[in-house]
């Protein structure tokens, strides 16, 4: 092993030209659907609350960004017995994104459209229910749909089946970073000739099984006050709350999008991912390299970036690293930084995709959505954190930063 820091760049600006976003679909704890979410984000309305999906009394984590829906209102009956909650949310977001793009893959040539989603554990809630049935009642009480409903690429599968998207299909597992990695992977598919890709993450699972798995990271908040449970960059930061939801984006080559008269929300201009050195090695974390390489991939400098959507771990050591990294790359308070995820919780594979959606909506409307009002930035000398109220600004370029538990760092640049 000669190096422990591996790098993948997005190779923007080559091949078939720029890749643009022509559609968005959002499912977030503070709003289902793009515009409902965006209104909540700008108003600083939080979706973080005590868990009610199950009784969390026996668990160290009681607070989450829970998103409840009435499944029958949104999805065909045939899909209900075979889908986990997070897959239902993904199907809803996928339908919205394709409609938003004015695209119907069923009308396109056979392999012209594909799907890439970010995932973490798959359909945990569904899986827990079936495992309970197996061990309490027996094998003949387990649904045949358990064969795929729990599986982490299930969202890619269900979305591609429903919309007849027979082109490239894949799933990426890199915790939070996956929400950016999936978008970059889809850009490569577009550059390789696929006309339309649906990409991003809609993830999360609020059930005892997944909660126990997630608490093993030691990064979840044990707070019981929803307003104080996830305070990234605050001196009182004590971990994050888990949430469910995310965003899916429709991606196309710019030339093709213009040709069909599609509305263009922005360009995926650059991307990079790095991996952290071994814990305890004392070497610099991979975050700064990811940010710098993403800027280089977009062929811009730090001065060109108008806003940063932070990873915002909510864990003191990680917040300190991110604040120092942003100050080093952009200069102290050199660029506005925000963390609207403080209003949703961290959405596993969905969180960074939602940040990309927020960035694109921010570019559209010339406004930076705020970090939760309860956050008092402890790194004010290093970062200019937009908190409590939206900030109007002329925005041309945004950087989205994501770190996935286990050493993943990714950064993505979008521009108008």
């Amino acid at each position, binding site marked *: 092993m000669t190096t422990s820091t591996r790098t993948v760049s997005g190779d923007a600006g080559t091949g078939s030209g720029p890749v643009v976003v022509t559609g968005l679909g959002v499912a977030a704890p503070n709003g289902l659907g793009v515009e409902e979410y965006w209104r909540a984000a700008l108003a600083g309305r939080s979706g973080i609350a005590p868990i009610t999906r199950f009784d969390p009394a026996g668990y160290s984590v009681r607070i989450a960004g829970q998103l409840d829906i009435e499944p029958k209102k949104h999805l*065909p*009956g*045939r*899909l*209900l*017995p*075979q889908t986990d909650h997070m897959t239902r949310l993904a199907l809803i977001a996928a339908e919205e994104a394709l409609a938003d793009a004015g695209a119907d893959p069923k009308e396109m040539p056979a392999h012209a459209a594909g799907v890439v989603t970010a995932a973490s554990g798959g359909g945990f809630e569904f899986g827990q229910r079936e495992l309970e049935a197996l061990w309490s009642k027996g094998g*003949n*009480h387990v*649904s*045949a*749909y358990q*064969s795929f409903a729990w599986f982490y690429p299930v969202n890619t599968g269900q979305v591609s089946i429903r919309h007849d998207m027979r082109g490239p299909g894949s799933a990426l597992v890199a915790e939070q970073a996956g929400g950016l990695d999936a978008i970059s992977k889809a850009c490569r598919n577009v550059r390789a000739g696929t006309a339309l890709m649906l990409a991003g993450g809609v993830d999360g699972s609020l059930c005892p099984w997944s909660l126990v798995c997630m608490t093993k990271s030691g990064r979840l908040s044990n707070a019981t006050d929803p307003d104080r449970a996830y305070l990234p960059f605050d001196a009182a930061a004590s971990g994050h709350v888990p949430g469910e939801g995310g965003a899916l984006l429709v991606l196309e080559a710019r030339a093709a999008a213009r040709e069909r008269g599609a509305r263009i929300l922005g360009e995926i201009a650059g991307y990079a991912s790095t991996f952290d050195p071994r814990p305890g090695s004392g070497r610099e974390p991979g975050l700064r390299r990811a940010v710098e390489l993403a800027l280089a991939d977009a062929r811009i400098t730090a001065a060109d970036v108008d806003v940063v959507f932070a990873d915002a771990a909510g864990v003191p050591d990680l917040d300190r690293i991110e604040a120092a990294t942003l100050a080093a790359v952009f200069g102290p308070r050199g660029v506005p930084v925000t963390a609207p995820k403080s209003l949703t919780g961290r959405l596993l594979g969905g969180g960074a995709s939602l940040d990309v959606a927020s960035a694109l909506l921010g570019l559209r409307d010339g406004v930076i959505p705020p970090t939760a009002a309860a956050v008092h930035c402890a790194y004010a000398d290093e970062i200019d954190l937009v908190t409590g109220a939206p900030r109007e600004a002329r925005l041309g370029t945004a950087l989205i930063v994501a770190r996935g538990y286990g050493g993943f760092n990714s950064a993505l640049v979008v521009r108008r």
Partner: protein
Amino acid sequence: MPTTTFTMDDLTRLLRECAGEDDSIDLDGDIAGTEFEDLGYDSLALFNTVNRIERDYGIRLSDEIVAEVRTPGELLAEIAEHL
């Protein structure tokens, strides 16, 4: 005479529970001769439903039944032989 009966209503009830219902299809209509595929049910949907019927009614159907029966009428006839 079998002491237990299994009717078309029982079948549609279990199809709805185990595999859901295609919103464009009326399961309460005359579906005895309609192919499962045209009712929106694939082999996995049928597998899930047959498994439930076996469990609820304490019967054992052949492993190939999902591939063999094509319509609700055929499935009802097959079940009747095992009750």
